[in-house]
């Protein structure tokens, strides 16, 4: 029995009745009180919400969730995510007949990765604040060729970061949200890339310069990434091939960056990129799909064929890297810088080959595929 005392029934107490009905064994609850409107308000409420009133006893009516389906288990991911689960959290009671939402990636084999919860937690813990993590106000003044080179490299980085933002953005709406940690990781990855775009853009204008050049070859290379519809291929080309190369580039800039801001933002971005690579490599490696490697290899070849007649890396970027790596801006100095950039390209190749071998490719195949990678690095 519920005694409402003098409380007006139309201003809240119905939740007490609903709770009592849910927990009572026979679905019956007696409701009493002293408010003069209790009788008709209780009767009206019962009629509107579908309970029955017998005297002062409320009898539970039909339950719209009587034939509900349960959206999997809270603590385990399902082998297949039902389109009828829609956007519900794992383990919810979902009303039958709710609109179905179809997601292309709706099974554990293609959508899930067992390492996703751990990497998601790591990604969330690794977020940094561009306002405080970067020494924007530290005084420095670069000679004109160096400032120009930094701005050119940053211009290039921003467009690559933008591509890296769009690739997971394409993927997220195709993943069944039942696999929420994977969706979550990709969402944080997008936030990472947005932050990289932010800090690199800020460095471009830090000393009042306008951005540098954006080449057709570079954009053509990135276009093949953002338009790739096969989720495995997209993630492979972006993270395994592209971001692995990029990681070497960011470490190079961390070492040869001529100012504290450039060094800091490249160091911070590199920590994020390492996580993106680890996620993609781990996910593809654990797929255990023997046909997958052939599909990925074919994609590398197809991309190479598509980009064969483009110029690849913007020559301004290549030259800017030489300038940054040169100890002095004279014939002897730029010679050293040139060799360092050649070494960088070699390090990128070795890093890609190592990743390809981790994915299961033979060393020979890894060497062949790495050599076919876009000259734009990403």
């Amino acid at each position, binding site marked *: 029995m519920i005694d409402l005392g003098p409380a*007006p029934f*139309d*201003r809240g107490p119905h939740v007490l009745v609903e709770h009592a009905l849910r927990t009572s064994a026979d679905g019956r609850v007696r409701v009493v009180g002293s408010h*003069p*409107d209790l009788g*008709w*308000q209780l*009767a*009206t*409420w019962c*009629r*509107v919400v*579908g309970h029955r009133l017998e005297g002062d006893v409320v009898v539970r*009516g*039909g339950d*719209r969730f*009587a*034939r509900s389906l349960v959206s999997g288990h809270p603590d385990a991911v399902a082998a297949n995510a039902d389109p009828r689960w829609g956007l519900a959290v794992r383990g919810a009671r979902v*009303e*039958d*007949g709710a609109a179905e939402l179809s997601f292309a990636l709706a099974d554990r084999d293609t959508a899930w990765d067992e390492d996703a919860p751990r990497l998601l937690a790591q990604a969330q813990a690794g977020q940094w604040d561009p306002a405080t993590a970067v020494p924007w106000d530290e005084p420095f003044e670069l000679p004109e060729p160096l400032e120009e080179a930094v701005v050119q490299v940053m211009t290039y980085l921003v467009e690559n970061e933008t591509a890296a933002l769009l690739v997971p953005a394409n993927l997220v709406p195709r993943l069944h949200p039942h696999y929420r940690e994977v969706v979550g990781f990709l969402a944080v990855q997008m936030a990472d890339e947005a932050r990289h775009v932010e800090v690199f853009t800020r460095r471009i204008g830090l000393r009042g310069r306008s951005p540098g050049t954006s080449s057709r070859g570079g954009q053509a290379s990135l276009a093949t990434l953002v338009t790739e519809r096969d989720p495995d291929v997209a993630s492979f080309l972006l993270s395994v091939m592209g971001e692995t190369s990029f990681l070497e580039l960011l470490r190079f800039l961390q070492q040869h960056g001529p100012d504290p801001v450039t060094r800091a933002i490249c160091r911070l971005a590199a920590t994020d990129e390492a996580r993106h690579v680890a996620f993609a490599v781990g996910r593809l490696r654990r797929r255990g799909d023997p046909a997958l490697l052939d599909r990925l290899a074919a994609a590398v070849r197809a991309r190479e064929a598509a980009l064969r007649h483009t110029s690849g890396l913007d020559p301004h970027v290549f030259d800017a890297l030489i300038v940054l790596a040169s100890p002095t801006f004279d014939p002897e100095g730029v010679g050293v810088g040139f060799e360092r950039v050649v070494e960088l390209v070699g390090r990128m190749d070795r890093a890609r080959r190592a990743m390809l071998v981790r994915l299961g490719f033979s060393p020979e195949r890894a060497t062949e595929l790495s050599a076919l990678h876009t000259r734009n690095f990403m």
Partner: protein
Amino acid sequence: MTPLTIGAVAYDPKVVTIWEGFCDWLASRGLPTTYVLYATYEQQVDAHLAGACDVAWNSPLAWLQTERKAARRGRVARAFVMRDTDRDLTSVVLARAEGPVQSPADLSGRVVATGAHDSPQATLIPLQVLSTAGASDVRPLVFDVMPGKHGDHVGGERDAVRALLDGRADAACVIDGNALAFAREGLIPADALRVVARSAPYDHCVFTSLDGLRDADVARFGELLLSMDWEDPVVRPLLELEGLRKWLPGRTTGFAQLAAAIDGLDTPGAAAVRAFVDA
């Protein structure tokens, strides 16, 4: 077979969704139906008597209008199916909690806000209740939203409560369910209003048929409605849109107050009903 034609009044765009859905479902059960929408219940009642529709989804007032007009033509109308949520409704007359109005008699000579002229629940029945409870010379402040729709909309009642709250009226008439809804949506503040009169329970909409008009198909139509199961996910959205859990057999025991109102009230709404029935 020629589809059974259902008449309904278009008081809201959702009416199209409701009848499209019901007709599809009835077809899936082997009964071809179609529907005609009318702008007013008076059009629907006359169309039904003229045979333009076979069954009519009638307001309580349209039911009485049909019953009386049919009787004058030597015909018999039946209320064969109704919603579970349309049984034993009440209307309440609200006044300001801190005001001088404490009983129906206190409303004599005062302004009472109501819904549309032809609303059974927000005008005709509550005014009849006040008149039998001793309120004389009540001055109705009528919010005549969508005339001809018999109050099948909430607008006039919300306006009536606003008029009461801001002092343009001394009382407001609403159906019980709206009194609760207005509290929930914040229109009625806590402790602001009190109930000074309440009607006896009455019934609301009924599916109406006319004897001799597609009797067998109408019977099948009624059986199918009664078989609709709220737990069926295909049916539930339609029932929810139409505001019921379950169709029940029709009954005509719940219309006495409304009949007394249209016979006895000296208001333009009641006079119009009498003129329509006599025409």
